[in-house]
């Protein structure tokens, strides 16, 4: 007998009570599923997956000042960490200097302030940047100068920049639609800077990932799994189309170092299906749509982060359980790298204890549960295969809608993406209020008083003062004429068609600040009023 109650996935896909071979009868094993490491990569991008190499456990960190962050990184390095993931403070992320009056409350909060090459040098002092890989977790506008700074350290140490490994997030959709909503640059201009960075790195820093499509922040705005996958793939398509228009690099070379960063949420099977569908869809886009022949370009290299927006401020330890399930879903979905959030994200920046627990979450899964023993263990499940197909079908429809609007940049510029976020978030809030969505300990089973206290991390209130003093001293000591000349050259290049990166490199080496560099771009391109509203 059919259940009367209807069940839906997180993105609204109807879910049946039981699945049978009938639900997957149209699947062609070789064409649609196949083996890991082979097209269409539904089961994983590498033939041996975790048997050959465990997923990387990364810790996103940075705090207070470059000096304190350096101390933290040295500790992480001694613990055996081989990759750093640089959290910058909010002002740096938007290209604002520590001594900008607008930054008065945000310097050193939620990340390290990096206003100049000086701060980058301090952050990585004593660390062998030729032996580690570093992810600069910043948007496009500060991504260009920060990447230049990191590479400038390499040059100053006499290292070949061609040997330096790392990643810049550099996603135009995240840069234009997530976070701070004032004084942004027009999306089309960010796309230009972003593609310049990719082209330049492809030619000069081949081991760098200059493009990490990053849907984690989009997902955090409130959208569902289909919207997330649709937006990240539509963004990737936009980049390829832009490079086709420019015609400067062969697409094989342009796409070769693309990587992806996605959120991983609560709907367990849907999230697994999302990662499986994402790999298959990217393969179809790269190979079938754009005719890219290099097999390395077909691989959807994926870092995932557990979803901060699923956390509650009430009973924060419950978040540990949520994170563990999310990271398990990422493992079953075949991600290459994972960041498990601190359980206290809804309360404060992570304490040392919560950072350690986030590493242990991945290690317990890797070393104690045997989930790594076989590849894509849910492949062939009538339910998961059918859900993978349905997510793919719905995501193609969503991408088509975006392409009908003229592509991602047009969709952002028109305010449509912001409205998607807002509408999804308000719908989510409505369902929480009505009880259609349950959040344990928050809108159901809520206690009158939190049953325990959580340790709170507080950033150093002295950081702004320390940074402002250092920056002002730097501005006095540096060669002003050299800075002015470099910034004038950058402006000239920005107004023309040449790649902005060589001039950006010269500017950072003259100790021009992030704010001075991004002000040049704001001067040339103007600012863009955010479409976010109610």
């Amino acid at each position, binding site marked *: 007998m059919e259940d009367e109650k209807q069940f839906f996935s997180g993105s609204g896909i109807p879910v049946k009570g039981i699945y049978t071979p009938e639900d997957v009868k149209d699947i062609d094993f070789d064409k649609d599923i196949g083996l890991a490491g082979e097209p269409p990569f539904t089961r994983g991008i590498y033939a041996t997956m975790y048997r050959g190499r465990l997923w990387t456990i990364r810790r996103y960190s940075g705090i207070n000042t470059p000096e304190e962050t350096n101390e933290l990184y040295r500790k992480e390095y001694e613990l055996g960490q081989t990759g750093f993931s640089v959290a910058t403070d*909010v*002002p740096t992320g*938007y290209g*604002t200097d520590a001594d900008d*009056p*607008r*930054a*008065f*409350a*945000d310097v050193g*909060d*939620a990340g390290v302030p990096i206003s100049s090459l000086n701060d980058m040098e301090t952050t990585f002092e004593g660390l062998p940047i030729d032996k580690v890989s570093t992810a600069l977790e910043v948007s496009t506008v500060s991504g260009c100068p920060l990447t230049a700074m990191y590479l400038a350290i390499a040059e100053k140490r006499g290292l070949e920049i061609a040997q330096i490994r790392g990643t810049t997030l550099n996603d135009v959709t995240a840069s234009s639609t*997530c*976070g*701070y*909503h*004032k004084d942004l640059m027009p999306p089309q201009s960010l796309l230009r800077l972003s593609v310049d960075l990719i082209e330049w790195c492809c030619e000069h820093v081949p081991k760098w990932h200059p493009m990490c499509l990053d849907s984690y922040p989009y997902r955090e*705005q*409130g959208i569902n799994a289909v919207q997330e996958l649709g937006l990240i793939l539509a963004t990737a398509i936009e980049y390829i189309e832009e490079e086709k228009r420019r015609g400067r690099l062969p697409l094989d070379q342009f796409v070769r170092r693309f990587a992806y960063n996605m959120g991983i949420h609560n709907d367990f099977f849907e999230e697994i299906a999302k990662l499986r569908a994402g790999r298959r869809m990217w393969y179809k886009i790269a190979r079938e749509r754009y005719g890219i022949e290099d097999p390395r370009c077909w691989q959807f290299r994926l870092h995932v982060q557990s979803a901060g*927006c699923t956390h*509650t*401020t*009430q009973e924060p330890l419950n978040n540990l359980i949520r994170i563990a399930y999310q990271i398990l879903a990422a493992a079953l979905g075949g991600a290459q790298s994972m960041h498990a959030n601190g359980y206290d994200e*809804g*309360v*404060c*920046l992570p304490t040392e204890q919560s950072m350690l627990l986030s590493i242990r979450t991945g290690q317990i899964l890797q070393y104690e549960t045997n989930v790594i023993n076989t590849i894509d263990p849910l492949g062939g499940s009538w339910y998961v295969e059918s859900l993978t197909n349905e997510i793919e079908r719905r995501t193609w429809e969503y991408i088509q809608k975006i392409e009908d609007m003229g592509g991602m940049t047009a969709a952002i510029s028109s305010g449509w993406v912001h409205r998607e976020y*807002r509408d999804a*978030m*308000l719908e989510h*809030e409505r369902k929480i*209020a009505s009880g259609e969505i349950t*959040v344990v300990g*928050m*809108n159901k089973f809520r206690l009158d008083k939190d049953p325990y206290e959580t340790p*709170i991390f*507080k*950033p150093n*209130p002295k950081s702004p003062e320390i940074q402002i003093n250092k920056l002002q001293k730097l501005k006095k000591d540096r060669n002003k004429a050299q800075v002015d000349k470099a910034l004038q050259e950058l402006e000239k290049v920005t107004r023309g068609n040449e790649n902005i990166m060589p001039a950006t490199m010269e500017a950072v080496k003259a100790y021009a600040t992030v704010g001075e560099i991004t002000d040049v771009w704001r001067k040339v391109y103007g600012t863009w009023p*955010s479409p*976010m*509203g*109610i």
Partner: protein
Amino acid sequence: MSDKKIKVLMAKPGLEGHWRGMVAVSSALRDAGFEVIYGGNMMPAEIAASAVQEDVDVVGLSILSANYMLLVTKTLEELRNQGKADVLILLGGIIYEEDFDTLHKMGVTGIFIPGTPLADIVEFLRKQTVAMV
């Protein structure tokens, strides 16, 4: 009962950009009949100037930065400097209980942490503004 609508300015002081809570609260207040001006990210002086210009009854601040004490202090200072000290202040975000008393004494009327039902915020503001209508 008059038809006067209570006017609310919703703003996020500083650069930190977590907008979800502010948009959710703004929409809930508008749906409940308040006149809401959505300011987005604004600096304290801009918040005060806008509060004066729009002659609002209420200023709602949304802060998820650890430096909320500094941001609130600066904003209240600007409101006083610009002659708008009489406005009702609401504060939403990750605010620690240990600071509630100080914030109330500074002039913050309502404090709401994540997980507060939107209906509770609407109800609170209705009660607080009933005399203004």
